[in-house]
Structure formats: structure tokens, C-alpha cells
């Protein structure tokens, strides 16, 4: 799929380089999510329904499993059968508040429907033809009935993507200590966590990029995370990456063996290795971390930043003491709420229709 608003994103990124972090950036409580209840209810069924993939072998929930923090618990995601993906599956929690989607930031956060379309129709994820998906759903009477609760026409493939997206908008963190704290409950964080918060905003400088309600500035940055060797040692993953580069129009894609991140979108070599800042909410449930799952624990993540990140990073060493690191990890954990679990509904079956009455 082609990147949307490419120029705008590229422009915003170049601006981002100029803006200094002297502005008092801070975390913010998660706003009240907005979504259409009837759409989200149908979307909940579709989210778990394998019939939304080409060979009916996997659903959205396969790589965004509510039991695994709405991710899959793997360093690198699996992708469609006979493929393996080359990046980590991000959690879907709080996605409705994202400014941009995908690790390389190629999709606008305002457009959840396009994100869902990409995941369902891309060859390496669900490999589904949108028109065939439409006809499959029309073969399920319960889905036709759910559709009529929010629209007056019959099921249309292009609108289905928004229906799934509406469910995703409804999946949000609950009861995180940080939200209670930010709303004035000083007791919501313990002393260590409060010390961690001060480091977060001060010495460790995390807040420069991890700010706002999600703990993400929604921008692209280079932290120098090491390449995951599995991407090139496992042919199926390298195939997926090289094919993604080829379809993105990246020059010299057969000889590009690193994950170049945003460069594949902007085609600007200066953007090599830049990835979208992820949210730092619900980290308790979403290990391993980073775009390629290279860091297994929050201790590893904090150590990584303490050293100033990896090769080519826009970061500086932090010189944190052991107790400071512990405080920072304790604080990061306070950004996780209660587990958000949605069970797979009992999916309604295909039924025979009157032939010729479509």
C-alpha cells in the first residue's frame, strides 16, 4: 500500500529536527475514547474472525492477541502462512490516540480504516481480497443484522475496515496508576516510582520523545537498536522485508539488508534507521520491545538508553546509577493498567442464501 500524506509526514519530520525540547513536555492522562458502539460490537466479531484472511487461517487476534497484551509475545511477528514478518507486532492498546501507525510511521493515525485495510489485504499479513471478504461476510446472516444497526445499506468491503477500526478504538488501557496520579492522587505512585518519574522528566530525558497521553510524541527517531539477525538469517523474513522495500520503491532493495525504517517511506538516506516512537503504556504486557523485539526486558531497555542507545543514535549516555535505573523501571511499570481482556466471541457460521437474491 502506498504511504499516505507522505509529503506532510516528511515535512513534519524535518520540522521535528528543529524543535528543541525546551517546551515543558509531560505525560498526560489518557482521554476518554470515542467510538461508535454498534460498529465496535460488530468489529469485535470481525477482529477474531479468521474468514477475514485469504485462506481463513488467521485473524487480527492472531498477531494482536488480547492474552498477550494485544501483541503476540514474539520478537518478530509471524505474518501470513508461508511468510514470516520482519518486525515486532505492536500492541493495539490505545491505538485510537496514535498520531501515526506502523513502526516506520507510514500511516496517519487519523485513518484507522486504512491501517486495517493494509493489514487485511497485504500479502505478508492477511492476504485477503477486500471484495471476497465482503462476500464472505454477506454469507453470515448475523453479520448482515449487525451491519443494519449502524447503516442502512448492505455490507460493503471498503466500509468493513472502518468497522474493525472502531473496535480497535475501543481497546484502551484501564486504571493505570499514572492516570490516577496525573489526576491528583499522589498515593497512586510509591516513592520509588515518583523518583523514577522525576528521572523520566529530568536526568534520563525520556520525556523528550515519550510524552502526551500515550507517552509518545508520534515522531520518528533513531535510537540505534541493533539489527535482529533473524531477519537475514531466516529467508522467509528477509523475503518479506525485501519485497516490502521493492513495493515501497526503495532503490537498491536487493542489496539493502538492514531495516531502514522510515527511509523506505521518505527515500531520504538521512531517515535510515528512524522508527516511530512507541507508546510506553502497558509495557508490562507487551515484551519484547523495540521494532524488532531485540530487548527482552525493561531493564535491558533502560540499560540501552543509559549507554546512549546504539550505533548512530540521536541519544547521549545518561550515567544513571543502579538505583536510578530501578526507579525508572518501577515508574515505567506504573504506566500499565489492569489487563484488558476481550474473549473471542462465538463466531456465527456461513448459511445458505437464496440463490440469485443478492
Amino acid at each position: 500500500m502506498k504511504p499516505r500524506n507522505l509529503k506532510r509526514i516528511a515535512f513534519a519530520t524535518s520540522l521535528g529536527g528543529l524543535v528543541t525540547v525546551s517546551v515543558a513536555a509531560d505525560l498526560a492522562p489518557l482521554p476518554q475514547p470515542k467510538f461508535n458502539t454498534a460498529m465496535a460490537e460488530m468489529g469485535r466479531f470481525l477482529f477474531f474472525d479468521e474468514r477475514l484472511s485469504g485462506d481463513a487461517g488467521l485473524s487480527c487476534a492472531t498477531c494482536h492477541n488480547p492474552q498477550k497484551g494485544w501483541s503476540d509475545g514474539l520478537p518478530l511477528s509471524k505474518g501470513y502462512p508461508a511468510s514470516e514478518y520482519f518486525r515486532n507486532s505492536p500492541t493495539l492498546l490505545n491505538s485510537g490516540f496514535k498520531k501515526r501507525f506502523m513502526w516506520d510511521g507510514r500511516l496517519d493515525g487519523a485513518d484507522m480504516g486504512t491501517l486495517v485495510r493494509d493489514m487485511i489485504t497485504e500479502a505478508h499479513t492477511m492476504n485477503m481480497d477486500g471484495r471476497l471478504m465482503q462476500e464472505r461476510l454477506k454469507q453470515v446472516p448475523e453479520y448482515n443484522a449487525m451491519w443494519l444497526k449502524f447503516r442502512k445499506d448492505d455490507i460493503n468491503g471498503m466500509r468493513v475496515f472502518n468497522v474493525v477500526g472502531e473496535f480497535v478504538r475501543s481497546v484502551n488501557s484501564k486504571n493505570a496508576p499514572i492516570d490516577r496520579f496525573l489526576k491528583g492522587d499522589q498515593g497512586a505512585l510509591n516513592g520509588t516510582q515518583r523518583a523514577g518519574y522525576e528521572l523520566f522528566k529530568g536526568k534520563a530525558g525520556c520525556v523528550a520523545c515519550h510524552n502526551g497521553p500515550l507517552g509518545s510524541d508520534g515522531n520518528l527517531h533513531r535510537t540505534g537498536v541493533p539489527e535482529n539477525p533473524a531477519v537475514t538469517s531466516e529467508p522467509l523474513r528477509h523475503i518479506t522485508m525485501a519485497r516490502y522495500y521493492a513495493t515501497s520503491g526503495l532503490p537498491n532493495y536487493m542489496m539493502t539488508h538492514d531495516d531502514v525504517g522510515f527511509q523506505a517511506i521518505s527515500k531520504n538516506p538521512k531517515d535510515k534507521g528512524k522508527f516511530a516512537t512507541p507508546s510506553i503504556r502497558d509495557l508490562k504486557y507487551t515484551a519484547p520491545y523495540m521494532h524488532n523485539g531485540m530487548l527482552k526486558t525493561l531493564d535491558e531497555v533502560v540499560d540501552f538508553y543509559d549507554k546512549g542507545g546504539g550505533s548512530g543514535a540521536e541519544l547521549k549516555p545518561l550515567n544513571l546509577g543502579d538505583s536510578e535505573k530501578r526507579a525508572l523501571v518501577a515508574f515505567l511499570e506504573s504506566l500499565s493498567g489492569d489487563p484488558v481482556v476481550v474473549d473471542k466471541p462465538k463466531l456465527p457460521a456461513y448459511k445458505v442464501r437464496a440463490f440469485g437474491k443478492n
Partner: protein
Amino acid sequence: MTTLKRNAIAATIAAVTAATLSFSPAVIAADTPMAKKAAAFPPLGPLPAAPIPADNPMTAEKIELGKMLFWDSRLGGDASSPCVVCHKPGKGWGDGGEISRGYPGTQHWRNAQTVLNAAFYNKLFWEGNVTSLEAQAPAAAGGNVAGNGDGSMMEMRLRFIPEYVERFKKVFGVEWPRIFLAWKAIAAFERTIVSDPKQVPFDRYMMGDKNALNDSQKHGMALFSGKAGCIQCHNGPLASDQRFYSLGVPENEVFMSEPLYQITHRWEHYQKGISEKGYRGADLDHGYYYVTKNPKDIGKFRTPSLRELKYTAPFMHNGIFYTLNEVVDFYDKGGGTTGPNKSPLIKPLGLTDQEKKDLVAFLESLSMDKPLSMASPKLPPYQPLKVAK
């Protein structure tokens, strides 16, 4: 589209058939209306060499590569549906089903046709929507109810199979495999999947072995060109005029009773770009109409070859008939009543039981004595790309 050397082929056909075609005077007198009818159509006869498009010459290495790719499941979405899954050598190079199995999670909606002698068609698929084997292969491998493969994904898979990289370089002179070259290699392989005239009783008969057909078959041959009128459409060495007709073949009952078939039936109407009214009322496979969008073409399908029928049951675009007896009965009754535009050539024939038997015996003589079988090739594995550090 490929350019066929039509004149050269026609000359070859004429040379072969003119020398050999002669109906026994015992069977048809030269001045009967029957004989005049038969003479108006290109005669049956042994197949000439398959036409080779100028832009895809045959080489042994290309054919070998094409054979491997024909078997290779990595040319498809989830590595479950290589060409050979629906075109099995052991099933007459079809799949033996009424309607082809299709991609997992789906159903196809038409009968999988044999690859045997597909080299001779200038239009492929039941609705004749592609004009070369080179164009047929990607349509099948990429069709969402067939192979559901993404071209760029399949191409990249080939590039991670070092043996293919070497073979593509040798055959096509390219640094990296390209997907359109894979289709060329497969097409070249398919042009080798043809009937061997020495194995076909009818062909042996036409080449001079008067004992190759028995009396019943000879009588059936006369009926074919005469009373039964089969030759009006099933003519030339391929026994197909490659034109489009509606016979009123009954719709397969599965479309009334099976959800997966109904899904594909609607999807086909949706994606083939017909009107909303046509989509909403779709209760028939419109065949050639999807290509022309001319209402006069609703229900028409391209005349299939009659060669190798012994190995390619069930018959018709939707596999509705399991035996040649059923097919002959269908024509004897003057075809069916399903859909519009029925061909005026299809009329009740008034065949006797013996005549029907003779006709079936003749049809069987257009098949090889033994099916064309073929062992599976050994397929090379994926390997990591050599990554310069």
C-alpha cells in the same frame, strides 16, 4: 500478447489433414448431405506440433525450469496451491472434481480444465479471457479463489532460492528471477504437455492404420461429422473451433446449497465489473459475457477440445456430467434450457441407443492409450541471501 505463427501452423495442419482425412465410402457416401456438412468445417486430424510464440522460444533448460515451477507451491499465497494441485497428471491434468477445489478457505466456481493440449488454444479459461499460456499462469496463480499469490511476493520468494537464481540467469540472462519470466517458463513446459499421435487410436487411423479404429468407432466418426453434427463446433485437429456457444447446461446444484460456492459466485460477479442489477440477481454463470459485456454472450463458453476425454471427467464448465454417455444424451435431447442465447446448432438428434454407443466409442478413440503421467520434480530449498557485512 504473444504472436502466433498462424500461417505456418495452418499450413502444417493443412498438410497433415489433407493427406490423411478421408471418410470410408462404406460409412458416408460422397454426395450425401452429411458429407457436405462435414466438408464445410476444418476436419479432425492428428495434432501438428504445438505453436510456439516468437517471444518465448523453447529450450530444454526453460522447460525443465517451468516444470519445477509448475510443481512449486511457493508460487501461490500460502504455499498450498501450486499449478499441479488443480492440474494433476494423475487426474488427466485437471483435478477430477466437478468444480475445482480452489484456494483454502474458498471454493472455485468452474471445472479445472486439463493442461493437455492447452498449447493449441488461442483463448484460455472457460470464458476465453486470456489469449496465451503466459497470461493464463499469473491469472490462476494470482486469482483470489485459485492461487491467491501476490506477484511481488512470489517473485521475491524465487530470489531466495539460489538454484532458481542460477536457472533464471541461465535461461533468461537475468540477475534476479522476475515473476513474468516464471510464467514464460511454465508456459514453455505446458507446451510439452500434448497428446502423442502415436498413442491416440484416431490419430493412428488418420495416419494410415486402418485397424486403429473398430467398426463401432468408425460409425461413431461418421455420426460425429454427420447426423450428430458435433463437427460444427468440435472441428480441426484440436476438435474445438475455439468459439463461444450456449448449450443451456444446467447450473450445478452446489450453488443453491453450499455457502462457499455462493460466496465465490457473488464475488465473481462483483469483481468482473458487471452492473449492480446483474450482481444482485446473479443466478447463472454468464461465461463469455463477462469478457464482452454483450447480453448476446450470456451463458456462452468456449468450445473445449474433445481430446483426452477418457482422463478428464467430469465434463462441462461446471462438471455437471460424469460420463460421456451423459454428455451424448444431453446433446441428443437438444441440450438444456438454462439461460438465454442457446445456440441454434443444438437441436434434438434422434440418435438410437446403438448410435449413442458408437459416438461414445469414437470420442474415446481421441484419447491416448495410456494417460500422460509425469513424476514430480525435486524442488530446491530457500537459502539465506549472502549478506555483505
